């Protein structure tokens, strides 16, 4: 037991004191914030400037201005001038050469057929951003709708808008009284993604550690002192503790940001300015007044944090056994690809299922995926914020536990076989024989 303790401590301490660990820990929140920022930027600022020629061959939504001698939209408010999207109108299309020589980026063409088919064709030299295409489509739809309202209903558009009705469904869980299921599903997915990354990253750490020991030729000295099983277990636990340390640091950092950020906002007048309350609010009370953030207060955070820790430990241990065996079966990391791809399929599948379950977090796929041991650690995280029964957690934990034990037995046999073998890449047949051998 003392030996195991020394191995665990070495694996943990040599990694935790590396600058890369601290940099990574601090960078994770920055990277998450950065990825959100990038996606926002990609959805807005990244679009290129586009000058669009709208060819309204039937004159449905444009008119000729005699004074200025140009075609203008009948309802200019349907085509607002945006900083990166500029419209010009015409009744006749340009030829291809003329269009290419012009300063237009796009030419949209339609005639009165648009009233039946609801489609228009556009021409370009360079394909526009999806957001540009979406904006043009929305503007055209609005103008055509306006045309139809006037032609068919003889209503003024303001009256039509007043009559037009859309229904927003507001859900409420009869047990939790919470209504923001999507918000909670997103939180679940966030933690699923985090667990997926951590399980794969730290699993790979185990594999690299084993390969490094083989390459450094230190392994023979080590296993003359400890058993291969002790070495593998110590390595897995030690590296797992690095992952848990990182979780603890991230949780502390998150709490610090929440606490310090909340106090800072309380001290400023920002909370009062963004709420309807006439008196000063504390941060929690302010969050409760914000419909988009209220659900964060309803999430059972102690349960979430505990679940993250438990499912990380179980999921990591299960996959680390596989990665340790892979590390023992190869001489260098490039050879490991042969085995890592099949090993990565279950967690990647779990991640993809977790992503798809945002829209239906309580669908059959999510439920069965959260019971199946190889996908359970990642998929159960999407369900916990929605509320799961205790027995479901026990089924998932028990299944992962049994699977981990079986994988540990299998991996330790391959590990023992491979750890002292050099200059040979194991075939699947060798691995199968290794699994069946007793020593």
């Amino acid at each position: 037991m003392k030996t195991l303790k020394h191995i665990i401590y070495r694996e943990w301490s040599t990694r935790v004191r590396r600058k890369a660990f601290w940099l990574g820990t601090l960078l994770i929140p920055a990277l998450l914030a950065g990825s959100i920022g990038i996606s926002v930027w990609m959805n807005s600022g990244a679009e290129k400037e586009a000058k669009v020629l709208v060819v309204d061959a039937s004159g449905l939504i444009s008119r000729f201005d005699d004074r200025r001698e140009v075609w203008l939209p009948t309802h200019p408010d349907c085509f607002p001038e945006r900083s990166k999207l500029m419209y010009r109108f015409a009744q006749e299309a340009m030829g291809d050469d003329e269009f290419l020589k012009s300063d237009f980026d796009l030419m949209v063409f339609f005639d009165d057929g648009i009233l039946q088919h609801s489609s228009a064709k556009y021409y370009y030299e360079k394909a526009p951003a999806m957001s540009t295409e979406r904006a043009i489509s929305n503007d055209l739809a609005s103008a055509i709708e306006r045309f139809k309202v006037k032609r068919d209903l003889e209503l003024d558009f303001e009256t039509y808008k007043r009559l037009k009705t859309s229904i927003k469904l507001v859900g409420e869980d009869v047990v939790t009284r919470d209504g923001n299921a999507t918000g909670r599903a997103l939180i679940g997915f966030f933690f699923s993604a985090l667990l997926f990354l951590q399980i794969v990253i730290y699993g790979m750490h185990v594999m690299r550690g084993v390969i490094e020991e083989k390459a450094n030729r230190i392994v023979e000295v080590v296993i003359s002192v400890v058993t291969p099983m002790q070495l593998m277990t110590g390595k897995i636990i030690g590296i797992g503790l690095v992952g848990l340390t990182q979780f603890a640091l991230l949780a502390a950092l998150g709490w610090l940001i929440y606490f310090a950020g909340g106090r800072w906002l309380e001290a400023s007048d920002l909370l009062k300015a963004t709420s309807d309350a006439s008196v000063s609010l504390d941060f929690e009370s302010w969050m409760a007044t914000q419909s988009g953030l209220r659900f964060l207060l309803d999430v059972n955070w102690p349960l979430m944090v505990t679940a993250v820790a438990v499912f990380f430990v179980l999921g990591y241990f299960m996959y680390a056994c596989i990665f340790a065996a892979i590390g023992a079966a190869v001489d260098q990391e490039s050879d490991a690809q042969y085995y890592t791809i099949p090993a990565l399929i279950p967690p990647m599948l779990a991640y993809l299922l977790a992503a798809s379950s945002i829209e239906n977090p309580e669908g059959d796929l999510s439920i069965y995926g959260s019971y199946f041991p190889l996908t359970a650690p990642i998929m159960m995280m999407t369900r916990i914020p929605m509320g799961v029964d205790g027995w479901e957690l026990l089924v998932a934990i028990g299944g992962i536990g049994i699977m981990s034990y079986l994988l540990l037995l299998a991996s330790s046999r391959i590990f023992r076989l491979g750890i002292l073998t050099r200059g040979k890449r194991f075939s699947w047949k060798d691995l199968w024989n290794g699994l069946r051998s007793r020593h």
Partner: protein
Amino acid sequence: MEKGAALVIDHVSKSYGPQKALDAVHFTVPKGKVFGLLGPNGAGKTTLLRMLNGITRADAGSIAFFGEQLSRRHLPRIGYLPEERGLYKTMRVGEQALYFAQLRGMKKEDARAKLMHWFEKLEVDGWWNKEVSEVSKGMAQKIQFILAILHEPDLLILDEPLSGFDPINAQRVRSTIQEMSNQGDTTILLSTHDMGSVEEMCDEVALLHQGSLVLNGPVQTLRDEARDGRVQVTFRGTVMQFTVALGASAELLEVTSDAPRPGEHTAMLRLPSATDSSQWIHWISGTVQLTSCTEWQPSMRDVFMQAVNETSKVAS
């Protein structure tokens, strides 16, 4: 169990698939001696050393360690310097040394004190806080050697301990091994291809070839037994005169001219088995001008080559 034996290797066999790595190997390693485990590549030495370290298990036979059946609980009493050795590159030298000492069951403070002693003795002091990646190959070899002997094992297994050392450091390590042997507390099992080291350090040897034991015994006895009536003489005069004088009294095997000094020749002869060598020397000294005459003593290299060649002939 044989008394006074550090190890009794009792008809140990091991196979890897159809390949027999060891075939009923049987020998004894006496306590407190330096015992050489010899053999060409693929003879089964590493397999046997791994068994002694509990890394692999025998298919048949048994190993006794100081009178007890060898098991993992004996591992803290064994020191091992494998041929394939290395260190963790991202750890500091001192920290790594302490780690291995603790793995072998030493207390941290005891280990630190002993490490300081050995670091000073082998001139590794000053490297305690350096990362292993900064250390030269020879320095790393010395650190690995220290890690094998630090816990004062009853049995020290050294697989090619001098490979990678410059002559000065090789001599330093060789002296350390001999000091440990002279103290008599440690039995040393030395696996090497360096026959000079075997002659210099080993009391007894076992020679393995193709998984079987082909030779076993004290170094001097094996060298004596390998004598085959060859005599080495140094003479003055011409080779022709010497050959005529020799007549049919001995078979002339080889002559080297101007050796060891100009004007002298060295000849290797084989006397017939019935010949009394001292009478023959007396007779030949009166016939030619001899400057020296000694019965040829085979080196361990000769013993090794002879045994391996004979076994190979039998096998083919």
